[in-house]
C-alpha cells in the first residue's frame, strides 16, 4: 500500500515536471527556429524583445492568450473545440514512455528519469501518434468551410500512408534489440549503434517524421499559397496557437527523441561530462536531429499531394520491407 502511494506520488510529480518543462521547452524551440531561419536568410530574426529576442516567446504566448477568440457561426462546436485538444494532447502523451537517461543516485535515493518503462513502450508511442490524425480531420470537418476541408483531407491521406511506412521501418531495430521497451533498445546498443545495418530504415523514418509533423517537403496541409492556411484557417487565439505548437515543435521534438533512441544509441557515449553525461549526450543528439529537420524545412520546396502519397506507398514501404530483409541477414551472420 505504501509502495503504491509512493510510486503514484513520484509518477505524478514527474508528470507535472515533464509537462511544464515541455511547455517551456516548446516555447524556446520557437525562438531557436526563428533565429535559425533568420540567419539562413541573412537576417537577424527576433532582436529587440529582450537580449537578442530571448523574451520573444513570452511575448508571443501573452499575445496568443489574450487575443479575441472568434468562433464562426456554422461550426460544429463540440468537434471544433475537441479538435485542437486532440492535436495537442497525444503529442505530450508520448513523453510518458521516452526515457532520458540512466537512473541516477541523489542522496541515496534512486531517481529514474522517465515516467514509466513499459515493455511495449514503442507500440504505445506509435499509437499515440496515430490519434493526432483525428484532430486534423475534425478541425477540417468542423470548420464548415471549403479550404479547411480540403486541407484536412489532404493531411489525412498523407498521414495514413506514412504511419504504415513508419511502423514497418521500426521493425529493424526491434529485431536487433529483441525487446519493445525503449529503455531496453538503448541498453542493447552499448556496442554498435543500430544505424549501421538500418540505413534504409533511417531514411524512411526521416521522411516519415517530416510528413507526420507537417514540415516541407511534405507540408501540404498548410500550403499557404494554395489553401490560405489549411485546416486551421478558422481558428483564432489559443486554439490556433496549439496547432503549430503541437505539430511543429512538440511532435518534432518527441519523434526525433524516438529516432535517436532507435538509431543513434540513445544516451550511450563516452563518460567525459561527469555523472550527468548520459543526459548531455542525449540532449546533444536530440538537438542535432532537431536542427537537421529545421534545415530541411527551410530549404526544399514542397510536393503535390498525390505525389506524396505515391512516394509513401511506392517507395517508402518497399524500402522499409527491404530494410527488414537486410537486418535479418545481418542478424544471421553476426549473431
Amino acid at each position, binding site marked *: 500500500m505504501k509502495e503504491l502511494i509512493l510510486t503514484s506520488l513520484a509518477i505524478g510529480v514527474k508528470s507535472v515536471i515533464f509537462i511544464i518543462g515541455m511547455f517551456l521547452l516548446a516555447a524556446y524551440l520557437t525562438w531557436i527556429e526563428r533565429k535559425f531561419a533568420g*540567419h*539562413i536568410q*541573412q*537576417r537577424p530574426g527576433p532582436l529587440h524583445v529582450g537580449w537578442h529576442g530571448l523574451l520573444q516567446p513570452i511575448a508571443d504566448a501573452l499575445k496568443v492568450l489574450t487575443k479575441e477568440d472568434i468562433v464562426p457561426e456554422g461550426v460544429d462546436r463540440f468537434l471544433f473545440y475537441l479538435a485542437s485538444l486532440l492535436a495537442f494532447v497525444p503529442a505530450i502523451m508520448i513523453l510518458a514512455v521516452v526515457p532520458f537517461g540512466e537512473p541516477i543516485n541523489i542522496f541515496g535515493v534512486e531517481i529514474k528519469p522517465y515516467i514509466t518503462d513499459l515493455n511495449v513502450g514503442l507500440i504505445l508511442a506509435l499509437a499515440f501518434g496515430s490519434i493526432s490524425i483525428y484532430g486534423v480531420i475534425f478541425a477540417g470537418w468542423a470548420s464548415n468551410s471549403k479550404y479547411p476541408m480540403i486541407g484536412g483531407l489532404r493531411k489525412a491521406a498523407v498521414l495514413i500512408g506514412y504511419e504504415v511506412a513508419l511502423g514497418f521501418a521500426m521493425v529493424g531495430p526491434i529485431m536487433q534489440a529483441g525487446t519493445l521497451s525503449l529503455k531496453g533498445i538503448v541498453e542493447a546498443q552499448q556496442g554498435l549503434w543500430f544505424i549501421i545495418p538500418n540505413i534504409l530504415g533511417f531514411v524512411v523514418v526521416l521522411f516519415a517524421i517530416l510528413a507526420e509533423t507537417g514540415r516541407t517537403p511534405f507540408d501540404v496541409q498548410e500550403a499557404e499559397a494554395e489553401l490560405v492556411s489549411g485546416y486551421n484557417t478558422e481558428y483564432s487565439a489559443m486554439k490556433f496557437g496549439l496547432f503549430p505548437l503541437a505539430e511543429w515543435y512538440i511532435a518534432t521534438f518527441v519523434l526525433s527523441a524516438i529516432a535517436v533512441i532507435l538509431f543513434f544509441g540513445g544516451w550511450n557515449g563516452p563518460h567525459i561530462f561527469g555523472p550527468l553525461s548520459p543526459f548531455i549526450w542525449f540532449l546533444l543528439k536530440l538537438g542535432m536531429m532537431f536542427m537537421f529537420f529545421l534545415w530541411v524545412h527551410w*530549404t526544399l520546396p514542397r510536393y503535390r499531394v498525390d505525389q506524396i502519397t505515391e512516394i509513401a506507398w511506392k517507395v517508402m514501404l518497399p524500402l522499409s520491407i527491404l530494410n527488414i530483409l537486410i537486418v535479418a541477414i545481418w542478424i544471421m551472420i553476426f549473431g
Partner: protein
Amino acid sequence: MVKIKYLDRPSLSNTERFFFIDFIKGMSITIRNFFRKTITTKYPYEKLTPPKRFRGTHAHRVKDGKEPPSFLAIEKFMEIHDGESRCVACYMCQQACPVPTLFNIEAEQLPSGKKRVTRFDMNLLNCLYCGLCVDACPVDCIIMTDNYENAGYSRKDCTIHLEDMKERGLDFDKRRYNEPDRIWIDDEMREKLWGQIKWS
C-alpha cells in the same frame, strides 16, 4: 548581333537520385548563408540616407542670394522679402501636374501694383511623386526633399501649406545644399549589403 539558343533540360542521374545529392547540394548553400553576416538595417535605430535627387515631400526655397537669373528678371513684379519663399505665382507647377486638383495657389494684387502669394496648398494624398512640378518651376522654388516619413492621423494633416514648406526647404538646404550629386552619400551604412566598392 542577336542569336537564338535552344536550352537543354537537365535531369537527374541514378547515383544522384539514390544518394540525394541534389538535396545535399541545396542544403550546403543554405548552411553557407547561415555563417554570413546579416544585412538588415535596423530601422528606426539605423537609417539610410537617401541620395540628393530623392523625391520626397515638397518644399520651397527662399530668397537668399542664390537664385537663378530667371528669378531676377521676374522679381520686379513681385513683393518678396529676404527669407520668404521665392514663388512667383506663375502656376506652372499646377499646369504640369497630372492631377488637376492637387495644387491650390492664390495670389493677390497689392495696391502698389506688385503680386504676393497668399496661399499655396498641396494635397499630398493625391500626389504621384513624379517630379513634373519640380521640372516646371522656372525660378528653382519648389524642390523635393529627402523626407519620406509623412504619415498622419487625419486627412487634414496630409495637406502641406506655404509655411511648413518654407521651413522644410530651409532645413534641407542647410543640411544638403553643398553636397555633390553622387549616387549615395553614406558609404558605411551601405557596406553591410554591398561590401567594398571600388570607386574611380
